[in-house]
């Protein structure tokens, strides 16, 4: 020992730096817990990483764009290098976007990376949320992280919307006009909010500057904080995992952060950035030069927002034009109802974990993921929600679908109106049936083994297919899931014969619980006894 210390008169430079930092930040204690932290491997666990990395890409490229963009609504006459706009009156915001696109070397690429990354950021958050939903990863202790993620998605939508509006082109300006119309439809305060937000009448002279500070400072600042909190919680809770041999609710199985995840996750950042950069080099996005500067008396057909606002666009397009005029006031239900639904559709996502935990009454921690089939009602609810969402996306693009599939825009609108109510119900029923079917198949596989494809002729002439027994690992994986029993209200009188008070909430809860876990709504998983009975020879095939 002493010889070692003697040899090491001077520690290597890296260690000395680390010592210095440890003396001030305590990094060794932090690293002890985290350096070899275990992360399980599954492709679906990386969807959140796609979102995180595209967020970083958006920040990097966004900072670059602020160096050239002029968030001003002062009007100028364009004399830049794009010929079809020369001599046209436009705001400085639009003119500087043209300059970024045509005069700054690489400016167009960065603008396109920024915009493509924004579309992918929202899409990745969406699928990440769906992964968390369908595997039940939102259950205790992760409900708060679900809310953080939900907030990131909603804030991402609004950050995207404000950014998309900044170039002050004819398409985005039409979107802002829609927003202003929607604000006006808000009862009592709408007109005042509109005047305060736009600094007077629409479009006014302040919109771009105000949206700019919201887009580059306020919302991304909040989002950055939420992302950090989200990641800290992921580290703190440790990642969930799918059931399997050696994987329990009390451990996490995978490979250590250093070196494997450092390399895989770090490498994945470059892969995501690389793919988005290549897409931005090859495919146009939002060619503002072709759209023209915003003027409130001009418009183009095919006026849509970016995809993440598409379902709101759908809601507003297919709503009938109801309007109430009473006592000198106007309530534009044709706008206000879609606006309210927009909020409700999102809030439904946010509160789901709390509803489910209320129904199950389960207060335990869950670190083993559900396979979607093993939670049929949850899965069916999720698919119903997505169905409604996608139907509204279709509604939001009804004019494009009309021209490209030679349909009538009125028929599409009616189709969307009806299927918004019918579609989710159908989706619910069908999904649950599929889940139950898959559960039965799993049960069958456990009890009777896998079909081997080998046909055997028995001595008395009967042909049977040989079933191959599953391995112990597979048996465990297929039977590891838990199944709840439905809650019961119990007898209406207690043991002393006194009538018990059953509140309406309890009745609802029992009913929901039955809907989730009642007979026919889940397939009881095979028991060890059933398995033994069949394999011990009685049930050979």
């Amino acid at each position, binding site marked *: 020992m002493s010889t070692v210390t003697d040899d090491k008169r001077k520690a290597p430079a890296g260690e000395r730096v680390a010592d210095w930092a440890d003396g001030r930040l305590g990094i060794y204690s932090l690293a002890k817990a985290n350096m070899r932290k275990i992360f399980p491997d599954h492709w679906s666990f990386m969807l959140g990483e796609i979102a995180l990395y595209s967020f970083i890409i958006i920040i990097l490229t966004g900072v670059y764009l602020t160096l050239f963009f002029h968030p001003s609504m002062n009007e100028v006459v364009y004399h830049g290098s794009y010929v079809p706009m020369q001599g046209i009156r436009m705001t400085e915001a639009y003119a500087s976007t043209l300059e970024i696109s045509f005069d700054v070397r690489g400016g167009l*690429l960065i603008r396109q990376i920024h915009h493509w990354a924004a579309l992918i950021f929202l899409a990745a958050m969406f699928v990440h949320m769906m992964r968390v939903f369908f595997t039940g990863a939102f259950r205790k202790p992760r409900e708060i992280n679900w809310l953080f993620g939900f907030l990131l998605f909603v804030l991402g939508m609004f950050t995207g919307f404000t950014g998309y509006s900044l170039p002050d082109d004819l398409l985005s300006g039409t979107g802002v006009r829609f927003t202003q*119309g929607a604000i006006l439809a808000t009862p009592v305060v709408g007109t005042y909010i509109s005047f305060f937000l736009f600094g007077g009448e629409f479009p006014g002279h302040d919109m771009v500057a105000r949206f700019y500070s919201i887009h580059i400072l306020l919302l991304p600042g909040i989002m950055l904080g939420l992302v950090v909190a989200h990641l800290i919680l992921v580290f703190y809770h440790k990642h969930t995992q799918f059931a399997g041999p050696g994987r329990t609710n009390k451990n996490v199985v995978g490979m250590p952060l250093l070196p494997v995840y450092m390399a895989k996750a770090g490498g994945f950042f470059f892969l995501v950035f690389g793919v988005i950069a290549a897409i931005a080099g090859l495919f146009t996005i939002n060619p503002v030069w072709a759209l023209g500067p915003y003027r409130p008396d001009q418009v183009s057909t095919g006026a849509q927002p970016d995809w993440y606002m598409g379902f709101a666009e759908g809601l507003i397009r297919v709503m009938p034009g109801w309007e109430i005029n009473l006592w000198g006031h106007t309530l534009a239900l044709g706008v206000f109802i879609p606006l309210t639904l927009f909020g409700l559709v999102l809030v439904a996502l946010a509160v789901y974990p709390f509803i489910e935990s209320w129904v199950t009454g389960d207060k335990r921690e869950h670190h083993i993921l559900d396979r979607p089939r093993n939670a049929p009602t949850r899965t069916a609810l999720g698919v119903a929600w997505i169905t409604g969402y996608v139907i509204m996306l279709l509604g939001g693009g009804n004019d494009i679908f009309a021209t490209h599939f030679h349909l009538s825009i009125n028929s599409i609108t009616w189709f969307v109106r009806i299927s918004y109510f019918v579609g989710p119900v159908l989706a619910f029923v069908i999904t649950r049936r599929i889940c139950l079917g898959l559960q039965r198949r799993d049960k069958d596989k456990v009890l009777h083994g896998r079909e081997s494809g080998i046909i055997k002729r028995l001595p008395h002439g009967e042909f049977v297919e040989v079933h191959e027994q599953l391995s112990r690992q597979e048996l465990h994986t297929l039977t590891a899931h838990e199944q709840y029993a439905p809650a019961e209200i119990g007898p209406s009188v207690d043991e002393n014969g006194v009538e018990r008070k059953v509140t309406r909430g309890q009745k609802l809860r029992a009913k929901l619980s039955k809907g989730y876990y009642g007979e026919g709504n889940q397939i009881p998983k095979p028991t060890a006894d059933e398995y033994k009975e069949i394999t011990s020879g009685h049930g050979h095939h």
Partner: protein
Amino acid sequence: MSSQEIPEKNLPSEQDTAHGAVAVAEDPFADPGLPPHKPRVQDIDERAAKRSERTVALLFTLSMLSTIGFIASFVAFPVEKIVYVWPLGHVSALNLSLGVTLGLALFCIGAGAVHWARTLMSDVEVADDRHPIEADPVVKAKVMSDFAAGAEESAIGRRKLIRTTMFGALAMVPLSGVVLLRDLGPLPEEKLRHTLWGKGKQLINMNTNEPLRPEDVAVGSLTFAKPEGLEEDNHEFNNEIAKAALMIVRLQPQDIKDKRELDWSHQGIVAFSKICTHVGCPISLYEQQTHHVLCPCHQSTFDLSDGARVIFGPAGHALPQLRIGVNDEGFLEALGDFEEPVGPSFWERG
């Protein structure tokens, strides 16, 4: 209360014992534990490992070359150079080359790192223990007593006057911030009710910037107009045109079904607000045979031969009509402002 109603025994973890499902001896479904680690080719064959090493190095080298390519493209291609590349079209040489080289440079770093991790770094799965997030009762008791001690020492419970006034002060101080927001914009007042139109204002053709004569407007044609005196270089042009934009069509007078529309027209020429009453898009997809006008944003459809009433879509009321006539010089003029507010509905519209 609720926890009494939903018995613990319904939780899966309780069921096995509660329902007496005796743990079967030698449970066939029991967790057999982590399967033994199987080596990869690279773990046992040094030549394969060497191959992987070379692949990784090649990817990193490719990345370096791509970065050089990026810099070279940046220097070589003028920003305005357009090249034809099948099947992309006539694209900017700079954007294409920068995007592809940057994409490749980044992708190769990622691919190299991942290939390294997948083939050369250890792939032995390890298990890490989880610990409950909840604190154990001892810790909780300590925190509770610390908190009680702190609260007691501050005397916040006893000195109610301090507590009440403090909450009052904290609740009121943000009001200053709210008050400061007042100057974000002026009050609406009657601004949404009036446009630049008024008695005697001539209808100026948007295209030619000249006043319109009735004979200029043919049946089946579509013309847009603005009020006399509103020029594009006017500082308030956008705010004003957002309310004043006008759509002019000519119908055969016998085709006009609405009495008031006919009264307010001139020889079949009708002038309607171009701003949709739904959320304010400039509506102007005029079908000259059906006399329908469609909004490109949300497909509200109005019938211009019937008082511009809504026949489809989310708009709540008809497009406002402008009363027009002809002045002494033979030009079309407005006979007043719109009688109702143009554009989207708002609470005070009435």
